[in-house]
């Protein structure tokens, strides 16, 4: 059985597209909408820039959850990037699920530049899900451990 780490705080990586979701995150900030500091955002030009490799790397390095945010379907700045992302992530997430990384640890959400509220709500609910799932050990590369 896994030993419960008292000091454990989830580590969450959020990939946000520059045009919609990153701007949505900015709006959440401007509106002072709280969400946990466990979420760290990486800016990408488009959700279709998110290489499955990045997500694997995050889990390998000890992330407990990864969320990809893009423009709403049909609103992609690059016309169709979010559709590519959706398809790729569907495949990747089911593979990760097969490897033991529960579906709840991965998520794709569409957040527009106007949806600061939605961004904060999404992050709050995602952190809640990850907290209830607990620490992710499945793909962690022990060689990456610093301690």
């Amino acid at each position, binding site marked *: 059985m896994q030993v419960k780490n008292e000091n454990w705080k989830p*580590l969450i*990586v959020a990939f946000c597209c*520059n045009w919609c979701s*990153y*701007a949505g*995150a*900015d709006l*959440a*900030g*401007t509106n*002072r*909408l*709280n*969400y946990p*500091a466990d979420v*760290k*955002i*990486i*800016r*990408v*030009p*488009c959700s*279709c*820039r*998110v*290489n*499955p*490799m*990045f997500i694997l*790397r*995050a889990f390998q*390095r*000890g*992330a407990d959850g990864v969320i990809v945010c893009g423009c709403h379907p049909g609103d992609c*700045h*690059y*016309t*169709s*990037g979010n559709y*590519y992302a959706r398809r*790729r992530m569907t495949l990747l997430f089911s593979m990760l699920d097969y490897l033991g990384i529960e579906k709840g640890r991965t998520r794709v959400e569409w957040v527009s530049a106007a949806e600061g509220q939605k961004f*904060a709500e999404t992050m709050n609910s995602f952190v809640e899900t990850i907290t209830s799932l607990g620490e992710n050990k499945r793909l962690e590369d022990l060689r990456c451990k*610093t301690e």
Partner: protein
Amino acid sequence: MQRIGVFVCWCGSNIAGTVDVKKVAETLGHEPGVVFSTDYQYMCSQSGQDLVKDSIRTYNLTGVVICSCSPRMHENTFRKAAASVGLNPYMVEIANIREQVSWIHKDMETATEKAIILGRAAIAKVHLNAPLIAGETPVTKRALVIGGGIAGIQTALDIAEAGFEVDIVEKSPTIGGKMAQIDKTFPTLDCAACILTPKMVEASQQENINIYAFSEVDEVKGFVGNFTVKIRRKARYVKEELCTGCGLCTEKCPQKKVPDEFNLGLSNRRAIYIPFAQAVPKVATIDPNYCTMLKTGKCGVCSKVCGVKAIDYTQKDEIVERKYGAIVVATGFEPIKVDKFEEFAYAQSPDVVTSLEYERLMNAAGPTGGTLLRPSDKTHPHTIVFVQCVGSRCDEKSEKGKPYCSKVCCMYTAKHAMLTREKYPDTEVYVFYIDVRTPGKNFDEFYRRAVEHYGVHYVKGMVGKVTPENGKLKVQASDLLDNRQLHIDADMVVLAAAIEPDKSARPLATMLTASMDTNDFFTEAHPKLRPVESPTAGVFLSGMCQGPKDIPETVSQASACAAKVIGLLVKDKLVGNPCVAHSDEMMCNGCSQCQNVCPYGAITYTEKEFRMPDRTTAVRRVAQVNPAVCQGCGACTVTCPSGAMDLFGFSNNQIMAEVDAICK
């Protein structure tokens, strides 16, 4: 190894109120590669920028990390500052510690910790940054307008007025488009020809405009500023440069039984014809499907009567290759075929007509000379039923109709009803409607006039069946407000057929790599903020090809489109976004997957010679990104199976470094 400077901004108390900026600057100062780290009250202020500039010079910095507000706010400010002291602007990265940290967290310890992590991620990224230089490409100062309807004409005129050359390519023998077929225009009821034909003449006389009528676009190559287009000039069998448009041939041609498409088959023309009196260019065209000479080699009447020897039965299609800086799509629309709606008996009775046909029947230059006569027996109709929304507003899965509102039918039906009542007050006019949609200046007033002044019967309901019997059209319809079924013995039924994009638009979109929606309307770059540009750089949209529009809207959009084209052509060089994809030729396996996902057609493949390790040469197929076309979305980088594709500014290694820095 980079020499990195870290600059932590307080943003007054916006950041410093929640984040221990001193601690952040201190901690990040110990990161590898960081040679200087400091904090300041307002980094974006002039003195803050000076601090950054001075430090770049003093410490010989090769990279800069600013911990401040969102990069969407001040990334450009700091890039410019760096550039002004000789540091490549793309060596600057921003860690967003305001919107993502201080404004959303209350606890100073947590916030400071997160700020440090975000700073580390930015430092890790800067380590892998490389100086980027935006490419420049020259601009061919000529525009191509595809489609010579009112949209294309207006766009061409506006561009030409600004001093740029414009070519109009029109597939039919004359420019003018659908507007030339229309009788009167709503809501002012001025005659369409009176306002359109002067524009057509102006287009033909404008020095900067060159009209390729009876021509089609065969091939498009190149990218914004540098398109090369092959135009097929279809054989007219008449030498355009010689023909004076006298029309003698069209009177003498013995083949009289050719359905006249300009009158939608309501009258006949000859095998050699000029579509209408004001055609531009006013040149005769031989229809090879009906010309006896071309079919059997016996006739030659037109050639005999032609005083200027313009007839040439041996003429072939000709291909012209031209270079353009911008392409305008103005392919327009056509009404749908109503053959899937035979409950209205269109195929069974000539007295059931579409609205465009009715337009011709009302037109003074039309088949009846402007007298309204029903086609079957050429008598004056006394009861006319108009049916709205034929094929518009259907279920998305409908195989018969379109899911959208065609927008113009409510208004032109009101116009038809009004004009009919005005000319023939003894005619009863019924309009069956679902909703009357009249948003537009003076539009609802116009519709109300039809009802209140002209006594048109507007019935909320729909026609369910038309039965031709004994010379009448028995119309069975619902009247929802009176909750009854109406049975009207009509003399004519007019169907307001939905509109759809012209059939030529789909293959054209493929050639241009411009995207279309499921209804074959061109997609705009942004539905609100970039409505006249296609997402493909250098391709612009004018008129109905983008969505249903009336004439005033079409003309405004056409002019807006021209403004965008002029804005492009006026530049001598285009400066690109350097954050574009690039392919490592040594790793590329030539699979074409990147080409398939690229929404812009920026990727092409070429055969290239490579020196192999054993000193032989081999030819391999490799991807090449055109940086002028690439918009930097990165779709190709993920799809590339060999990892050859990467994106400047957001490279695999850079993002990976950020992930590593965050997950420590």
